[in-house]
């Protein structure tokens, strides 16, 4: 006779019951789920992209562009010092590799220059890094009169991380402006972003939304230049030539009157002729600068530049003081809507390159789910039938454990909202096949013990006892493999590792703990002379 303490009994049954309730929502309709009382879990399985269909993109920020931008900026700061400090004159300011190089024109300036340059090389608090950690972004070297400011690796990776965290927000606002699409957006490493959009079947549209920089700016136009001058490149260094949408070229001031950074709102609208347009509004400082410029330049055109292309160059009829206006000449309504979304989200701080693009159509996802379900059910039934014919009554008990195991896996996956992928389904099926292993080891041991002449209770106790370390050993080895896969794998493979890992834990529970409880209870009641196994 052996009895279970009550707390053990309650604990085992409690775990089963909890697993069942966590798995339950998957078998209910949406309406039924909504009617579940609040204290019950109501989450269903979180299907991966390969099962629900959608687009997966791995984007990489072009670090070169970040470095280039930072170097330009650094050179600008050096020139500012030259302009602002009367006693310092720098010559030959140039960018070479990852450095800004220049010389002071006189030995006497070296010390002053060093002091003036100090702020540039001071360590700055790591953006988005750890609290209190500082990063020295720029290293300074001097050789005679020659100074070299070099960007450090840490500085570059800090810049990259910062650009990525800003780009994340921009991409989110562009792809999911209403926040309703359940997109996944995660940084990866220093300069990458993983974007997953479930339900999206047109990667082209998504890519065009992401790859547009959406750099908007307003510039003064030089109207006094002839096409001949443009062709010969006879323009001032403060000006540049840009193509005009629909044909032609114009010369504009490089310096913007106002840029997209000052936009606070943008939405699709129609102009007075009923043509699609984008209505925008500036913030206070943008409105003031735009107002000043338009007041002083009535009658002259200004250029609206988007990503190095002049969309239109309207003539200023009256001063625009309210800080709002319209961009016309856009094309269709859809384009206007897209541009409005892009402008509102802001410009990408760094161009993103697509490294990996995976699209699963909705048909394939549905087919995969169906195939996975069929395979799981058939695998389950085959194992159940085999265990029944192989072990009879003990087989039934192990089948109860197997069924419990499957429900526990579903419950755990739903509860933790782990992503279920197609290889994940394969992991569940594999677990079904391997879960009975623990039972097989134990049952075979009980048989042996009985054949060695032990009575049922002793055989059962010995069987479980002796088999335990083997079962643990056997499962730990597979668990190690799942563990490694989870940390080193990616995407669908990780999904496989998760179900395999969860399956190992639940299967040890159901195949060892649960069956022992059932068998002990049965032995206590039935008290058979011999176990028929």
């Amino acid at each position, binding site marked *: 006779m052996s*009895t*279970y303490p009550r707390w*053990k009994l309650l604990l085992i049954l409690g775990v089963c019951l909890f697993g069942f309730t966590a798995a339950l929502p998957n078998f209910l309709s949406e309406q039924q789920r909504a009617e579940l009382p609040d204290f019950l879990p109501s989450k269903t399985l979180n299907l991966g992209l*390969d099962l629900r269909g959608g687009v997966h993109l791995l984007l990489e920020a072009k670090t070169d562009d970040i470095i280039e931008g930072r170097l330009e900026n650094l050179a600008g700061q050096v020139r500012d010092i030259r302009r602002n400090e009367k006693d310092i004159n720098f010559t030959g300011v140039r960018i070479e590799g990852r450095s800004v190089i220049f010389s002071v024109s006189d030995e006497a300036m070296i010390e002053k220059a060093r002091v003036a340059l100090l702020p540039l090389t001071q360590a700055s608090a790591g953006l988005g890094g750890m609290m209190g950690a500082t990063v020295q972004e720029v290293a300074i070297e001097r050789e005679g009169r020659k100074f070299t400011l070099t960007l450090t690796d840490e500085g570059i990776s800090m810049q990259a991380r910062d650009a990525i965290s800003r780009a994340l927000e921009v991409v989110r606002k562009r792809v999911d402006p209403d926040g309703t699409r359940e997109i996944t957006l995660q940084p990866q490493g220093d300069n990458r972003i993983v974007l997953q959009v479930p339900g999206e*079947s047109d*990667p082209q549209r998504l890519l065009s939304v992401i790859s547009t920089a959406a750099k908007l700016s307003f510039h003064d136009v030089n109207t006094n230049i002839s096409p001949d001058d443009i062709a010969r490149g006879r323009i001032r260094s403060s000006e540049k030539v840009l193509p005009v949408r629909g044909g032609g070229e114009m010369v504009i001031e490089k310096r913007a009157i106002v840029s997209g950074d000052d936009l606070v709102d943008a939405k699709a609208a129609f102009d007075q002729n009923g043509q699609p347009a984008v209505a925008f509004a500036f913030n206070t400082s943008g409105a003031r600068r735009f107002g000043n410029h338009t007041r002083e330049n009535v009658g002259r055109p200004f250029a609206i530049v988007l990503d190095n292309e002049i969309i239109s160059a309207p003539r200023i009829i009256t001063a625009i003081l309210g800080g709002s206006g319209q961009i016309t000449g856009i094309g269709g309504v859809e384009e206007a809507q897209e541009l409005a979304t892009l402008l509102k989200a802001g410009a990408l701080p760094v161009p993103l*390159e*697509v490294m990996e*693009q*995976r*699209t*699963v159509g909705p048909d*394939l996802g549905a087919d*995969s789910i169906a*195939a*996975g379900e*069929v*395979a*799981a059910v*058939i695998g*389950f039934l085959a194992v159940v039938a*085999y*265990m029944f014919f*192989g072990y*009879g009554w003990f087989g039934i008990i192990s089948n109860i454990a197997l069924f419990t195991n499957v429900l526990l896996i579903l419950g755990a996956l739903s509860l933790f909202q782990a992503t279920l992928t*197609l*290889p994940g389904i*394969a992991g569940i*099926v*594999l677990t079904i*096949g*391997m879960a009975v*292993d623990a039972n*097989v*080891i134990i049952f*075979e041991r009980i*048989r*042996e013990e009985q054949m060695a002449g032990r009575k049922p209770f002793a055989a059962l106790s010995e069987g479980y006892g*002796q088999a*335990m*370390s083997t079962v*643990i050993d*056997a499962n*730990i*080895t*597979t*668990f*190690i*493999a799942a563990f*490694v*896969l989870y940390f*080193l794998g*990616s*995407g669908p*493979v990780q999904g*496989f590792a998760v179900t*395999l890992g969860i399956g190992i834990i639940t299967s040890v529970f159901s195949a*060892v703990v649960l069956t*022992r409880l059932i068998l002990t209870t049965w032995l206590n009641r039935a008290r058979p002379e011999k176990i028929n*196994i």
Partner: protein
Amino acid sequence: MLRLIPDNTKIGFMAARKFCYGLSILGIVASIALFFSVGLNYGIDFEGGLAVEIGTTNDSAIDIGHVRGSLSDLGLGDVSVQEYGRPSEALIRVERQPGDDAAQKAALDLVRATLEKTVPDVSFRQENVIGPKVSGELKRDGIIAISVALAAVLIYIWFRFEWQFGLGAVIALFHDVILTIGFFAITQLEFNLSVIAALLTIVGYSLNDTVVVYDRIRENIRKFRKMEVPELIDFSLNQTLSRTTMTSFTTLLALLGLYIFGGEVIRGFTAAMIWGIFVGTYSSIFVASPLLTLMKLDREHMFNDVQDNDPTVDKSRSVDPFAN
């Protein structure tokens, strides 16, 4: 009761060990030779390039030859077109394009446009574009994953068993992994990311089998002090044979369901697993266990180890929190 193996078998596994060593060595050499001569059919995960799976909205059959013809005219290099599961579905693979990631994307646009023209009612079921950088990283990560798993498992076995067992288990593992790679070289099944997952699962599974047998051998070494090692191994193998076959069979049943009904996408993965079950079962019986005779087991040490950190004797009972 339906049993695959009768009770109290006395199969002389050890007698066949010379033959099996030969067979395994032959298999390993052939696998390595195939790996370096024929090579693996790497999927785009590891090679880069693009793969497009298409179907037709009205389930009409796709004219594979026609599609192949029109795509090879595009000048995209190596293009393969094959039926995928059924006549109305096809898988198109295009080798990695020279140049950067944008070149891959441009090729995809071209392929899409061509397919829309050549296949009536085409639907795009799946599109994957992997740039050269990412495929290189995935390859590296795959190799790291397998190496780390093997190392982790080695460490575990080293802690749990005497070194002779650890060495035997690891040789068996390499045996299984190499033969599985040979299997992929012969069948030219696509070797992709999910196959790495399959390989690692095979590692776990094969070790699982080996550990069960080793546990029993170690237990019997302590029980039957007088028995000769080869005889003892045979005895242990026969004792665990029923379990070994049962588990392999149930796992196989589940995998067969997956192989037949699980769809084309994971067929390579299941094929690898099924092969792995066979190889893993074979290796734990015919490779890992007989290998122990080649290495001198320190039986004296093992007898004295009983009081120590020994899982197979009394300690096992305290492992079970629900034992009475």
